[in-house]
């Protein structure tokens, strides 16, 4: 009975599509983040929380 119902909307390809999609996106933003040219920018960005102390004159 169960398989009878499930056979109608079993979509084995969907998990695969989802996974491929994720891998592509993951490689994309990881590459974007790890590019050496961005190093100095990230170093600056990580100091942002401490700027409010400086902006007080």
């Amino acid at each position: 009975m169960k398989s009878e119902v499930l056979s109608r909307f079993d979509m084995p390809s969907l998990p695969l599509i989802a996974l491929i999609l994720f891998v592509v996106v993951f490689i994309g933003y990881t590459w974007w983040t790890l590019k050496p040219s961005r190093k100095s920018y990230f170093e600056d960005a990580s100091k942002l929380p401490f700027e409010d102390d400086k902006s007080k004159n």
Partner: protein
Amino acid sequence: MSSTHSQNSSLTRRLETFSYDDQIVRWFVIATVIWGAVALLLGTTIAFQLAYWKVNGLGDLPWITFGRLRPLHTNAAIFAFCGNAIFAGIYYSTQRLLKTRLFSDALSRIHFWGWQLIIVAAALTLPFGFTQGKEYAELEWPIDIAIAGIWVVFAINFFGTLKVRRERHIYVAIWFYIATIITVAVLHIFNSLSLPVDFLKSYSVYAGVQDALVQWWYGHNAVAFFLTTPFLGLMYYFVPKAANRPVYSYRLSIIHFWSLVFIYIWAGPHHLLYTSLPEWAQTVGMVFSVSLWAPSWGGMINGLLTLRGVWNKVRTDPVLKLMATAVTFYGMSTFEGPLLSIKSVNAIAHYTDWIPGHVHAGTIGWNYMLTAGVLYFLVTKLWRTEIYSKKLAETQFWLATIGLVLYITSMWAAAFTQSAMWRAIDETGKLVYPNFIETVVKIVPMYWVRAFGGTFVFISFIIMMYNLYMTAKKGSVVDGEKLEAYALDESSIEKNAKPHRKLEGLTLVFSVLSLLAILVGSMIELIPTIMSYNYVIQKAEVKPYTPLEILGRDIYVREGCYTCHSQTIRPMAHEVLRYGKPSEAFEFIYDHPFQWGSKRTGPDLHRVGGKYPDMWHYRHMWDPREVVQGSIMPRYKWLFNSKINYNTLPKKLEVMATFGVPYSPEELQNGVALAEAQAKTITEGLVKSGAPSDVGNKEIVALIAYLQRLGTDYGRIK
């Protein structure tokens, strides 16, 4: 950043004066503390109710039974306590990270009062049984609309602040806030879609499997985007602030962000493993849930390594200590979560008390501890003073930790006991413990331990309350301090900036990207399942509920029976032996909303129909201990006094018919008469077995009608 800009173009830049709106942060801080105490008091109360049933029924008052207080506890903890904490932290850090005052003082105040009113509305409706019957989304439709409205106010205020900022670059904490705001709106709106019957009653537009999937897509992402991403944003701001050193790896924080946002949205189906949810959706849910482990630990490691070099301070500074503990528990629960999503582990753990244990490792360990750290930080900053007593904070820390450990370990012990007993089958193929109650009485001692653990956590919170109050009292409030920063205009972009660095500043693009990330997952998972409604094989024998059963079902929803009972049988030998045929998707197509539940404090009820005579249920609901020695189920004596409300029945049937439930014109016209006739039949039987003759128009009859119908169309137990 601004210093580099000013070197580039200091001549052309305009210096502006502004001040922070710290009053609104103080208000949210106070609200956090008050609602936190309420949420924990409720939690402790319901913990004692499970240990000792009499705590349910002081004078048999309906509004303080477990089934009604548990939703109030979860809503208070998530939306009142964590909600206010998030708003306080977001408003404090955003102003400072963006060097600007919040966009609109008026919107901030509407946001504040609107949210508090929503909480009050929740407290005034849930105990009285006004509920949509979906976990963590119980609030009825007018309150849902108010939530959506206030959320929009928050969003406008937040994005407006981004617009008027004086810092081009957007720190990673703000990314987490953006994702939170967008995703929570999407989740809340889609899960709450319902059609009203009257002002305080509505039915979910989804039914059965569809409703289950939408609900757990929402439910899991309430954890993800209400209890995780905003708190991670707070972690990425407040931990560096408190430690006075930048986050260990900013790059890791970005990978952490995108991975979480992208993966979390898929994870919902791990709540529905082995149910009649389509197999592929279960697989997606499991795979993505297990993958969540990696980014979560990346985040934990990033948080903990930020503290490298200040470990000696962690020992003495309560703020750092609470935060370090919070991050550790974040690591623990994000390890446990993926583990529980593995199908074979889930088979053992699902429906047991392991799940509340897991949830509280997250909410107490991560959310409460982090909030406590942030609150000490905020109160000392906003009232410009030192912590009143580090010693009290230390006591709070230990009480909370010990309480939580008691909670977690007692629930593990309870879960292993339950699970082993539920599953035990002897050599002849029979259940070793066929009576569910045997498995209940075994774990009652663990419920006591949990209740005392919860009490410790509650007391720790009261200590913090006092400590914060005394801190604020000795401090003082200074508002409107003038600050200066350069305006953000053309001149503030570095001349040689690369395009992607400009992109950083484009909050719109960024928001769209995060929206896409969550929509892609949601669509792929939800749409096929929603659509598959049309393909579920309709079985002729599965019929809509009769009018009286609809009324009985509404009582079931109102009393929150789903907080202790599941209604879906998994295809496993021991479940089939205990409960009957595995549940099938087509059996639930008229269930608006679904009532599958998530925990088996009591037995599954999907096929309870016909298992006992009417009189058994009658006596059981009057006092479960009359028929089942040692039961911890509350009694429901008011069902024997309050009359069945037939007034809204025609409208209820009409709404169901709108959803496509095939009621005949006769049923729609004469619903009340049909219901009364069915009630009369049941009453005659009850009276013959000794019930008083005036029982006929009482709610208990409708509830019995519903219970006796459950699961019988397709899989009646023989």
